[in-house]
């Protein structure tokens, strides 16, 4: 309980997280507007206007996760303080994930609502909220292994926005159903992939955290 309170406080007092959340939500709002404007002009930008903006702004949630995890390792060496105060690493890692999930959930819900509600996609909102929250945890897990923000962002955004679309664009590609971000456009199809990717990444991060010298 003490650990949870400490981790929540840490997340809530980090200015970069607030800024990222705000920018992400604003970008979603702008994109939703762009989709709606295109639709009203009779030339829709795609068929999934309720979710399409999230396909882009999920980047903000990846960054949110990366910043939350990498902040421990940035200058100042906060990770020492963390481990001196809470030396049991596996429970600590679990609480960290839960705390980040709890902080992300309202941001994810607001972002999902912004994108889905205007496009009459209210039914997608819970799934989109869950997806964005899991994506944040995936970002945090990867940054926990890499321990530096910029390389983690390059890796994740490169995967999501360059390698992913490439793999998916190949005719007859089977990769589509197995990539972590499939659910961004097709929740019913990609839910399992997102959950499995996130859990695997979290497990990997917990194991490295447990074994590595801090």
């Amino acid at each position, binding site marked *: 309980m003490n650990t949870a309170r400490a981790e929540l406080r840490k997340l809530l007092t980090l200015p970069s997280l607030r800024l990222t959340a705000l920018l992400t939500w604003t970008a979603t709002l702008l994109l939703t507007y762009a989709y709606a404007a295109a639709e009203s002009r009779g030339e829709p930008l795609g068929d999934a206007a309720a979710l399409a903006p999230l396909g882009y702004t999920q980047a903000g949630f990846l960054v949110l996760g990366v910043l939350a995890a990498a902040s421990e390792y940035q*200058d100042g060496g906060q990770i020492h303080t963390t481990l001196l105060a809470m030396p049991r690493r596996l429970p600590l890692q679990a609480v960290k994930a839960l705390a980040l999930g709890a902080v992300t959930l309202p941001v994810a819900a607001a972002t999902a609502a912004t994108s889905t509600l205007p496009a009459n996609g209210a039914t997608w909102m819970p799934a989109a909220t869950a997806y964005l929250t899991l994506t944040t945890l995936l970002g945090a897990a990867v940054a926990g292994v890499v321990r530096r923000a910029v390389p983690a962002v390059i890796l994740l955004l490169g995967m999501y926005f360059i390698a992913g679309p490439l793999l998916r664009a190949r005719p007859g590609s089977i990769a589509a159903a197995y990539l972590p971000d499939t659910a961004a456009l097709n929740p019913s199809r990609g839910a399992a992939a997102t959950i499995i990717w996130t859990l695997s990444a979290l497990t990997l991060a917990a194991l490295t955290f447990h074994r590595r010298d801090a």
Partner: protein
Amino acid sequence: MITIDRVSKTKSRTLILHDVTFEARPGRVTGFLGPNGAGKTSTLRILLGLDRPQSGTALICGRPYGKLDRPLTTVGALLDGSGAHRARTARAHLRWVAASNGLPDSRADEVLEVVGLTGDARKRAGRFSLGMSRRLGLATALLGDPEVLVLDEPVNGLDPVGIRWMRTFLRDSAAQGRTVLLSSHLMGELAEIADDVIVIDKGRIVIQGRLADVTGDHHTLEDAFFALTAAEADRPW
């Protein structure tokens, strides 16, 4: 009470600690002396559960650091840096650390006052000078009013007033019955405050005992140190 028993560690195939064994007792200031890269920090990191040894045990009050309940109430540690994220204010930093060990928020302001940072409580850690960062690190160590203090090069970066303050503070802590273990490569500084001295060189303990015994026939601790480590320098690995 700190007990280190035959701790060895290899890092990228180099033996950095070899059978390190020593004790630091309550009511005494124990100085851990050695040149840069001798293994002082590695030993302290193992003691604090940050690094893992290949073999041996490092115990605080009879338990490994990871098994301590609310560890900050038993051990206060100062490693290099402030241990605070640059974007957080000093007070926000101390408050999350306090929360992690179930300590009241009011402790944050109390320890800030002890280290003389009351006026900088709302300043972000990234704007602190070297000396202020060290004071913030010490404030963090004191949050739980611990009975054991472990400090890595505590006077690094402090101004003369700060050094004098630190010296008095550590002597007082020992006088109140606390166990104080501090590492340093500054022999003159250590000779001023330590009751017991442990000398480490190239990962091995060279000598340990009361300050007077370690200094022995030599003029100063510094002379003793060079005599001891020079003798060791030729030994093949």
